[in-house]
């Protein structure tokens, strides 16, 4: 085990090195770019024994990833924003074909207007693709989650691809100390990928990616839902196993001072760090407030959320994305699945800082609500 100071992008690249994928089709895009650069260098320096496929687009990156995973090897790719949007169609195909690809998405706003900074609209727009989506808060979590994602995705009961979502710039381009696990421990945690359901071998021919008529399509999709539901248990088990070997504990959600809280903030990603500080400050002023960090957005961990929010009066969901006429996606999902008084706040779009003041505004508006959904920090003039 070594401790180094690095960005979340480097942390993801380190996790990929340790996970030993054999094919890495990747295309550069801000702010994911340094992941593609680190991996190219690792391959050039023989730190990873993989084919680095220098594809001509993100569409081809994910397509080559499906081809390689279908052929039976472990695969990694990474992208961001417009790149993820270009992958959209094939993300669905990957999940439907049940190829356990791991993809890192450096969360970034979607054009237009063109914007390279952080929000989470890109991955949120892929929420129904059939991928597991885990949102991380810091570089260590980015590394650890990438390793765990392989183990969950490749579980024979799951076989769905995973998206590790890390906030662009806020995480991808800022440095933090990160513990890099040693290869031996990682090998123990994550054995090689040995597919049984789908591979391409002339000694055992099979057809993958077939045409299914109405007699079969519904069942094929329902099987994915079953696997997605089952993945909650597998994620938790994998987190426990990870904690045993590496000492760091994760779960589907991470409650912070929620037990006796009247109001609970709910959010995903790096924003949770700010919120934790705010919770402490508010607590010092006597406010009974807590934070529930959602790590697994898909599968949606209804039970874990219910457990964490059971004692509170109100919930304030802060989304860095929104659905026209509805509000944030996490807010909308909470409204459907969680029987509580819930308010939604849209903040941090296109890289706008979510300041303590903005969070205070959300807090006050949860205490004395005016609307179901409020845009925080909107410049009126």
């Amino acid at each position, binding site marked *: 085990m070594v401790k180094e100071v690095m960005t979340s992008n480097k942390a993801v690249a380190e996790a990929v090195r340790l996970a030993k994928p054999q094919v890495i089709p990747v295309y550069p895009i801000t702010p994911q770019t340094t992941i593609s650069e680190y991996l190219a260098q690792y391959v050039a320096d023989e730190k990873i024994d993989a084919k680095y496929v220098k594809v001509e687009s993100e569409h081809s990156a994910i397509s080559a990833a499906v081809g390689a995973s279908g052929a039976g090897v472990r695969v990694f790719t990474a992208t961001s924003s417009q790149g993820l949007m270009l992958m959209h169609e094939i993300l669905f195909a990957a999940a439907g*074909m*049940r190829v356990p690809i791991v993809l890192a998405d450096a969360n970034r706003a979607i054009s237009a207007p063109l914007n390279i900074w952080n929000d989470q609209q890109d991955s949120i727009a892929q929420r129904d693709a059939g991928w597991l989506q885990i949102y991380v808060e810091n570089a260590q979590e980015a590394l650890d989650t990438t390793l765990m994602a392989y183990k969950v995705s490749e579980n024979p009961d799951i076989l769905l691809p995973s998206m590790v979502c890390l906030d662009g710039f806020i995480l991808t381009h800022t440095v933090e100390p990160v513990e890099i696990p040693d290869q031996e421990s990682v090998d123990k945690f994550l054995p090689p990928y040995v597919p049984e*359901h*789908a591979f391409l071998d002339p000694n055992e021919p099979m057809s993958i990616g*077939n045409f*299914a008529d109405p007699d*079969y399509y519904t069942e*094929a999709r329902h*099987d994915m839902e079953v696997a997605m539901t089952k993945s909650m248990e597998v994620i938790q088990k994998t987190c426990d196993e990870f904690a045993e070997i590496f000492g760091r504990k994760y779960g589907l959600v991470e409650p912070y001072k929620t037990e006796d809280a009247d109001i609970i903030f709910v959010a995903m990603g790096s924003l949770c760090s700010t919120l934790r500080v705010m919770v402490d400050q508010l607590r010092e002023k006597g406010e009974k407030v807590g934070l529930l960090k959602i790590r697994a957005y898909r599968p949606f961990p209804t039970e874990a959320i219910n457990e964490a929010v059971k004692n509170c009066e109100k919930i304030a969901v802060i989304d860095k994305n929104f659905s026209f006429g509805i509000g944030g996606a996490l807010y909308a999902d909470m409204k459907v699945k969680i029987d509580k008084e819930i308010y939604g706040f849209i903040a941090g779009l296109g890289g706008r800082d979510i300041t303590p003041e903005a969070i205070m505004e959300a807090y006050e508006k949860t205490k004395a609500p005016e609307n179901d959904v409020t845009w925080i920090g909107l410049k009126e003039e």
Partner: protein
Amino acid sequence: MVSIGCVIKTPGNSKNNKTGSWRTFKPILDKEKCIDCDNCIIFCPDSSVNKQHDIDYDYCKGCGICANECPSDAIKMVKE
């Protein structure tokens, strides 16, 4: 019940689908006239002529390519 990802692990099992039922015209080969050029085998879209030039009516859709490409007029198309 479908297989995971609808993967098919029984190569070539489309043979379960006997496309011979599509046929309205049937090729009949006169082996006396056959000169073994193998055109009927090579050009058959449905692998319905074997090396001995026997026609497999289980799959033959009756397209008539074999008759059209037979240089010795050894194949006649007859209404089913």
